[in-house]
């Protein structure tokens, strides 16, 4: 078989090079073009836009005004606070739930494993909209709402879950806890399966208790997966939008306004594209900083 492994340098070097490698570059070109047109260009122009008073016809350069305005805006700080609370409340709990479910499933026989994997993955297939609609019914503030009816059985008065500042953000958090863990479960299961059985046998012979095996072998060896879920979880959570948009529209009194929702509002309700761009860059910067910090904090003792 003819391969392209050994290009010969001849007088017609460039022609030969193109003939042998041309296709490869052509194939690479497609994704690179897509990236340039739909990612790099918008990001770059948004960066420029964040220093402008945006108008469809001829924006004006206003320097750091957008950023100054943003910093002086109480709602902006509140949105950061909400986002951080949401993230801290959801991500670790979600990882814990995911891990426990995966650990339980891992002990099961083949068929039961398949059943639970499929069942728990199902919500990941359903769209966020569908799930939000279901949760709107659960959080229905009247006493016919599912959650309120359940509380009624316990003799607790109906709660206006999404309609008051005190419970709105918590409601979104609760919904997130009980949301989809399927993808994480699959990842954990894969890495649990990747831990050689002989390590546990060696540990058995080494007098390790069940807890020791978990704490000294399983958990450390699954750290790369945990780190991955932590980083992706935080990134996703920093951008939480759909549930806010569909269920509370950021209210009441900005109690559930997250950064992503604020950006949406600024851009598409107030048409302040310049300000929205500035907010986007702050969000991006936050995500980068947090991710780097996490890798710094965890990667030293992660065994890849």
């Amino acid at each position, binding site marked *: 078989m003819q391969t392209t492994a050994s290009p010969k340098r001849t007088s017609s070097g460039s022609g030969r090079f193109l003939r042998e490698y041309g296709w490869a570059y052509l194939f690479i070109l497609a994704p690179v073009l897509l990236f340039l047109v739909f990612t790099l260009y918008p990001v770059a122009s948004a960066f420029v836009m964040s220093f402008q008073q945006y108008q469809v016809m001829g924006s004006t350069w206003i320097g750091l005004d957008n950023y100054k305005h943003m910093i002086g805006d109480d709602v902006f700080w509140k949105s950061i606070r909400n986002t951080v609370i949401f993230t801290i409340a959801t991500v670790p709990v979600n990882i814990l739930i995911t891990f426990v479910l995966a650990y339980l499933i891992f002990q099961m026989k083949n068929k039961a494993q398949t059943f639970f994997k499929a069942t728990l993955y199902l919500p990941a297939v359903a769209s966020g909209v569908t799930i939000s609609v279901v949760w709107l019914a659960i959080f229905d503030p009247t006493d016919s709402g599912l959650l309120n009816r359940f509380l009624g059985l316990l003799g607790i008065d109906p709660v206006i879950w999404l309609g008051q500042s005190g419970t709105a953000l918590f409601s979104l958090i609760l919904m997130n806890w009980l949301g989809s863990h399927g993808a994480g479960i699959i990842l954990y299961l894969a890495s649990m399966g990747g831990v*050689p059985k*002989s*390590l546990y*046998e*060696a*540990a*058995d*012979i*080494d*007098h*390790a*208790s069940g807890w*020791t095996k978990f704490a*000294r*072998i399983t958990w*450390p*060896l699954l750290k790369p997966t945990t780190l991955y879920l932590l980083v992706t979880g935080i990134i996703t959570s920093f951008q939480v939008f759909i549930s806010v948009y569909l269920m509370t529209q950021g209210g009441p009194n900005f109690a559930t306004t997250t950064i992503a929702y604020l950006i949406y509002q600024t851009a598409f309700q107030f048409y302040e594209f310049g300000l929205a761009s500035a907010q986007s860059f702050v969000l991006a910067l936050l995500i980068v900083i947090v991710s780097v910090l996490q890798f710094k904090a965890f990667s030293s*003792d992660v*065994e890849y």
Partner: protein
Amino acid sequence: MARVEFRNVRKEFQDHSKESFTAVAGSDFVINDKEFVVFVGPSGCGKTTSLRMIAGLEHQTSGDILIGDRVVNNLHPKDRDIAMVFQDYALYPHMTIRDNLSFGLKNLKKPKAYIDQKVKEAAAILDMEPMLGRKPRELSGGQRQRVALGRAIVRDPQVFLFDEPLSNLDAKLRVQMRVELSELHKRLGATIVYVTHDQVEAMTLGERIVVMNRGIIQQIANPTELYAKPRNMFVAGFIGSPPMNFIDASIEGGRVVVEGGSFELPAAKLDALSPYAGRKLILGIRPEDIHGEDYAPGLETSPHRMNTHIQVVEHLGSENLLYFHIGGRLVTAKVHPETKAYPGLEKPFIFDMRKAHFFDPDSEQRIEI
């Protein structure tokens, strides 16, 4: 105190179609205190399964297992006072070598000073003090091997179990580790059960050898006896390299007749073979017991000669391997390199009948003569 005994131990595995497969069929043996016993046999013959049953990692389908004087049938691995070296070493990849070594002792809640002392000793014995701070992935195969050994040593177990510990090493390192293992055994004075598929390893390491095939123990004997008196054709063919030659033969008129020749036998031996008169049997002779007529020290006057037609010659330096056919079977002779030989040459060979074996062709058992 640390003998290991199997009493009619069976192990069956259920496969996916729920059919049972017998991995170990009724094993009976006693391994004495401080003895180095090697289990050897082809891949899949049930060696690892036997070892894992001693360790308690696999539970026997029936039969009794004793360690020391205790029946350990229902004991958890940690309560059997054994240590095991796994084929893939099974080092904890995320722990330093020091932690790998001390893991078992920490689980036993030994005092820190004791643990440090033990780790230090093991590191000294195995020459790995500089590696204690490293992780397994930063070590070579041979070094990992040592760590696996060390992890077993620090525990001072009654019985050491080894599952093909040298199979992942290169040939040179293997020879070196073989010597070290022998020395370690003398030094520790422990009972060692060692599994390998390599008969050279078995012969050099084992004080006694258990030869297995298809889940059945074929013979238990020391290396000399195994070589000189294999119980059946399987053992005869498995022990020794190149393997023993098997040639179709018959007894006619007081002589052993093979295609192209015959050999006279002393009356005493003929007596033992008399039930086979007029029937087929199998002559077994090792390659090193066939000599070229021109180089057969001590056998110059032997009457047991036969002309053969050399087909292939392999030069190994210290010896040459010659191949020819007798009665449709390929026969190997391992001869002194000064023996004149080239493909196509027809010359007389001397068969050392003092060392010949005879086997029943139906039962494949060796006929004691």
